[in-house]
């Protein structure tokens, strides 16, 4: 008896499958990027303002930066399942990715805030601005200028890191290509597609951010 696989070669319908994977990559990057950036801004601000908070948050930052993302994903997955939580895979990935995004963002935010000359803040306060007003009108805009390009770099890093979430079973672009490679055995064209996909996203954006940084510079 002979077995015939239904569609061994690459098909046009596989394009739809790849598109879904691509959208999943963009979606998980966008959601994790949003949460990670917000949390990172808060974390960076806390670390800049208070020494006690800096000491308290250092172990967390240290651990997230010294353990591979793959291990973090697997560990979070197995911990949540043995603790009895049923989590959607998407939210699990968002959680781990945004935690790592928050950590790297916090360093950029902290460096940006540290680059604001202390005299600017003091003059603002002596003009009668409250702490919050000073932050909104003086520190934050100045810090944004110095850290914007670095933040864009982090976001692109997140997009590339999202290629790893397949390890807990979320099918993003890399995984969907890999599934097709396993079925069709056409590794090279599909891998070229993967490379092109990430390159087309990352290269123009990184160029744009450098140009924008030059325009924003004082």
């Amino acid at each position: 008896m002979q077995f015939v696989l239904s569609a061994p070669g690459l098909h046009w319908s596989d394009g739809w499958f790849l598109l879904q994977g691509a959208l999943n990559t963009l979606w998980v990057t966008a959601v994790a990027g949003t949460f990670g950036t917000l949390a990172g801004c808060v974390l960076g601000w806390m670390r800049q303002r208070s020494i006690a908070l800096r000491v308290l948050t250092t172990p967390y930052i240290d651990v997230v930066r010294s353990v591979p993302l793959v291990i973090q994903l697997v560990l979070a997955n197995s911990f949540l399942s043995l603790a009895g939580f049923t989590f959607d895979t998407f939210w699990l990935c968002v959680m781990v990715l945004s935690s790592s995004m928050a950590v790297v963002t916090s360093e950029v935010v902290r460096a940006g805030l540290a680059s604001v000359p202390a005299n600017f803040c003091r003059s603002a306060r002596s003009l009668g601005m409250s702490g919050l007003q000073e932050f909104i009108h003086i520190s934050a805009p100045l810090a944004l200028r110095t850290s914007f390009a670095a933040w864009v770099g982090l976001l692109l890093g997140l997009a590339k890191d999202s290629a790893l979430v397949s390890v807990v079973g979320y099918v993003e672009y890399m995984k969907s290509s890999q599934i097709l490679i396993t079925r069709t055995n056409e590794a090279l064209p599909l891998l070229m597609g993967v490379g092109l996909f990430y390159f087309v996203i990352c290269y123009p954006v990184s160029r744009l951010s450098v140009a924008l940084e030059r325009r924003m510079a004082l």
Partner: protein
Amino acid sequence: MGLRARAFHKRVALMFGYTFYWSLVWDAWPELLAGAWLTLQLALLSMVFGTVFGLWLALVRQRGSGGAYRVASVWVELARNTPVLFQIYIMYFGLGSLGIQISSYASVLIALSFNNAGYLAEIFRGGLAAIHRQQMAAARSLGLNALQSYTHVIFPQLLRIVFYGFVTQMVWALLNTSLGMFVGLHELSGAAQAAQSVSFRSFEFFFITALIYYALAKVLEAGAYLAFSRRRT
């Protein structure tokens, strides 16, 4: 185990309805240790190759034109704008489909060296920009040839300037070796993956694995700081 520790352990087990079997990890300790050694080896070797090629890329990119400049630019942009996992897959599955079969160890090492070189080139470029142009002229006028000027005058200063970026990249290289798991390499992650597939106690295995990665990262950082402080005196 002390009485209090045992009570705590019991409470955790009750909370999760789960009993931890750490002894399983202990049984697989030799495999994990071999994996950790492989991981360290890959991280260090890929950093050595990455530094050599990264220096070349940075110097060539300083010229601003020519064939070598274009090759170097493509290298740097490809390394920095695609995922590391993609670079490993190209080396393993991509070359494989062209009929060039290389081992998973070689493909991870080549891909990581390629990646490190791209990132280090940008780090070195920033460092080279900070060294005054006349340093080179002065070295040449003292009778050193180009290679001597680089190795005795430019590179020592460069490595001092880019030290923090270099150490960060080294830790990144260490973390990136964990992707060897995806091509069946038994480095630390792959060894843990293989060991846990017998018992499916993934939490215990990967928790210990995470601890080992943390320790390795600290060892690398400490080593770099020691080497650096000795050089500065």
